[in-house]
């Protein structure tokens, strides 16, 4: 999954990574690609993890994890940070998800009656970046497929997703159907848990 996302990133591009699975991308990006990682709590130029000597309680990412920054990094307030996103200045945004559908709608902030984490920055993040990638496991722990014709959970954004990367493949939401861009090694259409009429 991580390699598929990294392959979509142009050299020197800017990238926002959501909390959860997308943070795995940060740890695997080759430095030669010179990606500028943005974290919405107010930093551009996130680098690797700090050492125990260099760690700072005032230097964290949006997942509240300690980070370091690279030369050329900058800090700013939350309004400027979301201005970068909403204003279209960030190239790619990678978010996790509970459900994503053929229309490109995403649900990732609440399960009515069961769990509410809040949307955090996700509802803003899905508007503005030039490419919105949702990265998620294809099936839930209970075995339910997370790619649906239409989401059943409350939405984070409507018709906002450009690419979907799961452990089984890469998909593009086309409106009424998913296009299969790529299947992981050894995976067949029949294993996707998608009705044939939802696949282009």
């Amino acid at each position, binding site marked *: 999954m991580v390699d598929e996302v990294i392959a979509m990133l142009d050299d020197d591009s800017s990238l926002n990574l959501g909390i959860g699975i997308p943070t795995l991308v940060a740890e695997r990006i080759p430095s030669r690609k010179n990606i500028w990682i943005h974290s919405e709590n107010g930093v551009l130029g996130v680098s690797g993890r700090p050492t125990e000597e260099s760690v700072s*309680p005032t230097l964290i990412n949006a997942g509240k994890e*300690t980070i370091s920054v690279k030369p050329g990094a900058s800090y700013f307030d939350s*309004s400027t940070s979301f201005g970068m996103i909403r204003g279209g200045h960030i190239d790619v945004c990678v978010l996790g998800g509970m459900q994503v559908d053929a229309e490109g709608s995403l649900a990732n902030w609440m399960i009515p009656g069961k769990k509410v984490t809040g949307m955090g*920055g996700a509802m803003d993040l899905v508007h*503005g970046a030039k490419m919105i990638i949702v990265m998620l496991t294809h099936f839930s722990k209970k075995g339910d497929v997370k790619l649906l014709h239409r989401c059943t959970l409350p939405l984070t954004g409507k018709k906002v997703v450009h690419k979907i990367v799961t452990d089984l493949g890469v998909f593009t939401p086309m409106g009424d159907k998913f296009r299969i861009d790529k299947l992981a090694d050894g995976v067949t259409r029949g294993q996707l848990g998608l009705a044939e009429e939802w696949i282009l």
Partner: protein
Amino acid sequence: MKSKVYENAAAALFDLQDDISLMSGGFGLCGVPENSIKEIRRQGIKGIHAISNNIGNSGRGLAWLLKERQISAATCSYVGGNPDLEEQMLAGEIDVTLVPQGTFSERIRAAGVGVRGFYTPAGYGTLVAEGKEERHFDVPCIFELPLSADFAIIKAEKGDSFGNLWFKETARNFSPLMAMAGKVTVVEVEELVELGDIQPENVHVAGVFVQRIYQGKDYENAIEIPKFAEK
């Protein structure tokens, strides 16, 4: 010049009352006004409407007030990692309004800079849009109103007697916006410096937005999720 400098948190927060709205800076546990929050806990103010991104985290920050049942309403963007808030929310003891984080910061900024509202695509087509005016520009948007508060409590790394502030690393987050939006903004600093010590071009918040300032003490500056490079 009438001094804005107060001796400590108790002196600076002399006029709080029950049922106030209260903005508090900080993202998770980063940049949290610890001294002011502890003073509010000591005073036992009740019925607070707290406006803060997380309303505390991992039992700290504003969670100190949650534990004492001093907060009756909360406006925030994220409740994950805050078991005190989640428990009171599920029990119906606290009225929580969730706002998308970018909208949250922009509503606070709007209040501080005199903008009466704005249209944003964030939240369009979701529960957040319910009951709000929609308007189609290049994309569909919803109308959002400013968000102000009776008091804003924030923490800065350095500040001077006029209230000019400088923040360290990502501790800035919502604090400059809240400083503008609070009717009374009370700042605590790691280091109270002389006028002129913060170079004009390095001032993150101009003193005109700040009403009171004091030297803080005994900071915990806790790290919520420590992660280190592999050796």
